[in-house]
């Protein structure tokens, strides 16, 4: 299956397993290092949690598993655990000399795959590879079916429409996904039918909506898979499903934040935004505070008011910009806008940006009332995390969030309804056969959908004056995107590409990297639909009904 490990392994798994050990106690660090080496693992040690995080972010696929102590001076081990789980989705093992049930429980609740008591024995370390393997298998199951197929679809559809550069972006967009996904994707080639994939949780619009509602209800800060699961009250859904979906969602949000950065000045000449997008992309990494429920993520990212769509994503620098831009728009729909943005951004899939940008994005949300940014308060902590959130899950969540948000803006993208009206611009129509079926196209589709959604949004924002522009831009952007994804059913697409690992077209990576792909213009269009990547390429056949889909579709856990 996909490469599981980014670095080539000449030996048989688990030999060469890349372990990152984090412990402030130098004695233990040395002992563990020795023990792990004896297991033939590749060990990296560090004594500070922050250092560990930066190491992880630097090399996204550089490690297979993280072992961390619970008590550390600079950061709580549980927090680190959360970050790693969200940003990198790596298995994390906690260690402590304290074996109190409550602590162990806390570890497990925060997502630790194991909790070891010190003193640690060699034999305990020998078996840690099982966690890695388990995770891979789970991921594989998650990815299957959705992304790959959709992604392919999108690529396929879009490829003929865009020139190389655009296409390239799309490629990047897709390649952003986790390595697993990429592998899957590559295997599929375009047009391959992944329909044979195993059944995986499909985050339909409704489901995603429930998810976002739950998230909003809990409060983005306090959100946790278990809580969400409980609130959602979907019997067949597992905590893992929610957890991975949540992760994606967060990534998406952070991405949106990044994108929201002013760089995305989509308002006019989206093309310009392209470049800004690019910048934004870079910023993605900045913000990524992993989905940490920061302040209002929605703000920043959601407030795409269309222009800033991209900006939201960028956390760091963008915030200021976004704010500016956003201010133009109604502040209120911040959330909504953000959501939109997030959506679009999601397409980028790479949430490098921290949610911080999302804050500013919030403004955008304002613009798009419907975009109710998922309640996730993407409070951006403004942490310049380099969270490379490849998943766009947040995108969808954003959408859903929107609906959930108070703003009621019309139900976030989904509701697009209000905007639908606006979107008179035919240009953007989300041409994609709304067939939500595209699960095959997976990501690609989602993009389309997102774009579609955006369109309406943009139209909505049009009043802001961008509408027309958007329209025009959008089209141009789409082309730029080159992805020409045939966003069929938006929601599906969104889902598909959002985080489906496999489905994203290669461009995905790029897309994520550069906010560019999103073409600022696209964003201006309003809905932060994840159309970043999506936009390209698909004709926007604005279908009001699509919006709602987007939200959900985006986030296919």
């Amino acid at each position, binding site marked *: 299956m996909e490469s599981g490990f980014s670095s080539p392994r000449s030996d048989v798994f688990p030999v060469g397993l890349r372990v990152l050990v984090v412990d402030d*106690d*130098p*004695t*233990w660090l*040395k*002992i563990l290092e*020795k*023990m792990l080496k*004896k297991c033939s693992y590749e060990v990296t040690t560090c004594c500070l949690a922050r250092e560990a995080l930066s190491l992880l972010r630097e090399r996204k696929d550089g490690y297979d598993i993280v072992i961390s*102590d619970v*008590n550390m001076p600079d950061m709580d081990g549980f927090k680190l655990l959360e970050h790693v789980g969200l940003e990198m989705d790596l298995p994390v093992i906690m260690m*402590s*000399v*304290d074996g109190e049930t409550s602590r162990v429980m806390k570890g497990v609740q925060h997502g630790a795959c194991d909790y070891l008591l*010190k*003193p640690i*024995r*060699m034999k305990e370390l020998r078996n840690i590879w099982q966690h890695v393997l388990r995770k891979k298998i789970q991921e594989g199951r998650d990815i299957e079916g959705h992304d790959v197929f959709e992604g392919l679809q999108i690529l396929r559809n879009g490829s003929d429409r865009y020139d190389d550069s655009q296409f390239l972006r799309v490629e990047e967009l897709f390649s952003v996904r986790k390595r697993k996904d990429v592998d899957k994707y590559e295997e599929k080639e375009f047009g391959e039918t992944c329909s044979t994939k195993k059944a995986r949780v499909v985050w339909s619009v409704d489901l995603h909506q429930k998810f976002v509602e739950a998230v909003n209800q809990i409060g983005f800060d306090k959100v946790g898979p278990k809580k969400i699961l409980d609130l959602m009250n979907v019997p067949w859904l597992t905590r893992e499903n929610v957890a991975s979906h949540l992760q994606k969602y967060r990534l998406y949000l952070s991405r949106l934040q990044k994108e929201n950065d002013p760089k995305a000045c989509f308002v006019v000449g989206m093309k310009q935004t392209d470049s800004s997008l690019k910048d934004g992309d870079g910023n993605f990494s900045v913000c990524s505070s992993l989905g940490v429920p920061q302040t209002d993520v929605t703000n920043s990212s959601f407030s795409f008011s269309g222009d800033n769509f991209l900006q939201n994503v960028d956390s760091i620098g963008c915030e200021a910009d976004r704010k500016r831009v956003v201010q133009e728009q109604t502040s209120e729909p911040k959330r909504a806008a953000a959501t939109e943005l997030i959506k679009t951004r999601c397409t980028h899939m790479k949430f490098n940006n921290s949610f911080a940008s999302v804050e500013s994005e919030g403004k955008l949300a304002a613009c798009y009332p419907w975009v109710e940014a998922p309640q996730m308060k993407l409070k951006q902590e403004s942490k310049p995390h380099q969270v490379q959130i490849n998943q766009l899950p947040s995108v969808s969540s954003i959408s859903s969030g929107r609906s959930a948000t108070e703003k009621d803006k019309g139900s976030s993208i989904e509701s697009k309804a209000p905007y639908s009206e606006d979107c008179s611009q035919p240009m953007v129509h989300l041409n994609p056969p709304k067939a939500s079926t595209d699960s095959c196209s997976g990501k690609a589709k989602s993009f389309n959908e997102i774009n579609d959604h955006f369109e309406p949004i943009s139209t909505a924002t049009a009043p802001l004056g961008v509408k027309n522009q958007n329209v025009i831009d959008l089209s141009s952007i789409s082309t730029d995107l080159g992805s020409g994804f045939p966003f069929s059913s938006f929601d599906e697409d969104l889902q598909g590409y959002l985080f489906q690992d496999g489905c994203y077209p290669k461009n995905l990576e790029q897309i994520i990297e550069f906010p560019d792909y999103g073409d600022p213009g696209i964003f201006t269009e309003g809905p932060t639909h994840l159309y970043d990547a999506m936009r390209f390429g698909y004709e926007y056949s604005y279908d009001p009904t699509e919006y709602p889909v987007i939200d959900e579709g985006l986030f296919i856990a």
Partner: protein
Amino acid sequence: MEKTQLRRQLANIRQSLFDQGFLDEQFVQLEELQDDANPNFVEEIVTLYYRDSSRLIVSIEQALQKSPLDFNKLDALMHQFKGSSSSIGAKKVKAECTQLREYCRAGSGEGCLRTFQQLKKEYTTLRKKLEAYFQLARQAGPIDSACRPK
């Protein structure tokens, strides 16, 4: 012959450390980690432990001098110390740490102070014993000073 005697002596000392409860299984783990790549691994670890923990001891002493005692801080420090001590298998020291933490939770300043004195005693005793042990081990030759079949 002398070496053999030395080694036997070494083995006895080592055994007594276990028997008297100064060391636990963790020490054996460390010995097992020792290999050609790290022939003095155990000694290195013990040295590292004493170096690092001496700083901790100072912090704990400082904390104990405050009035009123900040039990939370003390507890946190003790937690750290306990974790550290577990790394070399310092059994008695660990036991004292646990005891001290109990007193912290109970809010007994006197209990904390008393236990800490005890802890320091164990800590120092162990260090001396281990120093002697390693010295003998070096004399006895580079075979597994841990006397544990690899």
